[in-house]
């Protein structure tokens, strides 16, 4: 192959694919059979990190950036005047295999602009995955984009070769979608999601009966939403995310702060900063919902439509529910310990094991590694030192913020400058 031409295509098609946040290579298991190439242990590996601090785990590219749609938020939209390119199927296969053999990547994440129509595009994505699996005996990770509007038959086939499938709903609300992507219909996004979900359930049940049933998308589905493009509240976003987690058994919902790429009066202006901190708070909320036993209305509701940016959502919740604290670290149940600000799930496990041997005091908790500067106001332990104070939530918040250092301090320097 001509390496110069490939390099040019890679430049264009990697650049166009980078706004897709997902780079996960975890969650699916695939053994290396018959001494082939690659495996997938279920643990993802980030092989490198870009200068923006994001993980590089997969070769993430578009098959082509030709597109018949004109979605305002997308760089590949039809009306955008950019260089276009398209990979041949064999070129993607060769790149993937050669990168993988050198331990650069965990696998391939292949997406595409929509050329001709949905099915034609989806067929080509599947052809790459099929070739990798059947001709190259490749057992690494494959993530395919489900093209909105693709037929059920194609979605069924895609899951036989891919570990993960995803459709990006991009805009969290239906009204926002109408405004920014007039050619796309909400149902077109939902259709492949539903099909994949049902296939996963069906294959799983069949596998229980017949062990040789092939795996169908073992790493499940994911989706992505753009944050801060259409003025939606955090409550809208998280409600929408919860809906996708519940309704389609999503493994992950990704939140992507809107990066201004175009001057379009429907969108925030080109100077707008990427809402990185807001994105971070949304991910924290997502984790609280999935791993810490919170439900969405506890964190976001009609009174609190948006997350506080200066403190994390768990602390924010605890300050609103002071009557539930302090809790006794040596007696409280797992769920309650998990709700204490500054205690993560790994520390919860350690505390539960350690307290079977002896009553824990502050020094034990510190050694285990919980963040005492937040948690100490919400717990008691085997000690006469007592930090829980009869303070108003606002005063406690100020006290915590004054005595702790946050990596996000730079965003709040204007507050500090009031007291020079």
């Amino acid at each position, binding site marked *: 192959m001509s390496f110069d031409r490939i390099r040019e295509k890679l430049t264009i098609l990697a650049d166009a694919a980078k706004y897709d946040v997902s780079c996960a290579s975890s969650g699916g298991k695939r053994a290396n059979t018959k001494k082939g190439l*690659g495996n997938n242990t279920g643990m993802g590996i980030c092989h*490198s990190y870009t200068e*923006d601090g*994001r993980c590089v785990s997969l070769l993430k590219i578009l098959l082509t950036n030709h597109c018949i749609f004109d979605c305002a938020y997308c760089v590949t939209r039809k009306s955008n005047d950019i260089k276009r390119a398209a990979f041949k199927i064999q070129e993607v296969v060769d790149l993937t295999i050669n990168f993988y053999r050198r331990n650069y990547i965990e696998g391939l994440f292949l997406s595409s602009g929509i050329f001709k129509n949905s099915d034609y595009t989806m067929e080509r994505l599947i052809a790459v995955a099929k070739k990798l699996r059947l001709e190259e005996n490749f057992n690494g990770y494959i993530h395919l984009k489900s093209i909105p509007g693709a037929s059920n038959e194609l979605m069924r086939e895609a899951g036989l070769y891919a570990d993960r499938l995803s459709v990006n709903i991009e805009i969290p609300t239906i009204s926002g979608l109408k405004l920014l992507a007039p050619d796309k219909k909400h149902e077109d996004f939902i259709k492949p999601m539903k099909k994949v979900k049902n296939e996963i359930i069906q294959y799983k049940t069949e596998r229980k009966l017949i062990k040789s049933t092939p795996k169908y998308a073992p790493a499940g589905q994911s989706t992505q939403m753009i944050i801060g493009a259409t003025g939606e509240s955090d409550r809208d976003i998280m409600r929408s995310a919860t809906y996708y987690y519940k309704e389609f058994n999503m493994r992950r919902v990704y939140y992507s702060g809107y990066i201004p790429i175009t001057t379009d009066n429907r969108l925030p202006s080109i100077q707008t900063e990427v809402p990185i901190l807001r994105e971070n708070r949304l991910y924290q909320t997502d984790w609280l919902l999935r791993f810490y036993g919170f439900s969405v209305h506890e964190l976001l509701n009609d009174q609190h439509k948006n997350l506080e940016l200066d403190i994390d959502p768990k602390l924010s919740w605890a300050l609103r529910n002071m009557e539930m604290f302090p809790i006794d670290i040596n007696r409280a149940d797992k769920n309650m310990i998990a709700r204490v600000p500054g205690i993560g799930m790994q520390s919860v496990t350690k505390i539960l094991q350690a307290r079977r041997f002896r009553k824990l005091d502050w020094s034990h908790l510190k050694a*285990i590694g919980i963040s005492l500067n937040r948690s100490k106001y919400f717990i008691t332990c085997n000690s006469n030192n007592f930090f829980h104070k009869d303070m108003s939530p606002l005063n406690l918040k100020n006290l915590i913020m004054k005595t702790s250092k946050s990596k996000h301090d730079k965003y709040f320097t204007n507050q500090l400058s009031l007291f020079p």
Partner: protein
Amino acid sequence: MNPQTILIYDGSFDGFLSSVFIIYEQKIVYPVIRRQQEMNNQLFTISETVYTDKIKAKRVWRGIKNKTSKSQQKIIFSAFLSEIKGVENTLFSYLKNMFKEEHSKLIDYSNKDILKISQVAKMVGREKHRMEAFVRFKKTKDDIFVATIEPDFNVLPLLINHFQDRYADQKWLIYDVKRAYGIFYNLHKVEIITLDFFSKQNTTVAKEHYTSDELEFQYLWKTYFDNVNIKSRKNAKLHIQHLPRRYWKYLIEKNNI
């Protein structure tokens, strides 16, 4: 004052286990286990050289196995591979505690030695995981994929399974330049080898040994790496946090080719 007994061993895991055996056999009260390379003379001490004895080591390991779960055994071995000065003694205290207690699935994280060992094991585990990520193979003319590394801890023994499972159809070599040994997979099994080819001055495969398209793929990888970056999200601190400078030397994407 009770004098300490310093047990000097060869640095191998079997050597360490042999030392543990001797402490119990000779009922040594104040033992200090030390690697040969770390020897320094101290006043008022008795020192004894431990000869690595596979049979003794096996007996101690069997004792450990009877008292621990698989994951605890992994913690013990990983912590040993950290090569941190004095880790042998924390490990010995850990083992002493373990031999004393009933076999339990629970871990007493409120005991400082136990907590320390599990933290050290975690550090080693992280380094192992980093090496699984940061190894960059270069294909040579004789069809071997070669990578050189300088990990903080002696993690090569922990890497064998991962790379053997993953790259079952290609010959590969991962060489620890700092510790001067490597693991080589010959399509059948993994062997431990030492080479004169690499040294502290000569840490990577020279270009003239590359297969014809090796450089092209390195360029392509660098092109890819540069183009997935989003400039408006630049975050140097996070970048360094995930990709500490000491690893850059062996990363193709962080060097000029």
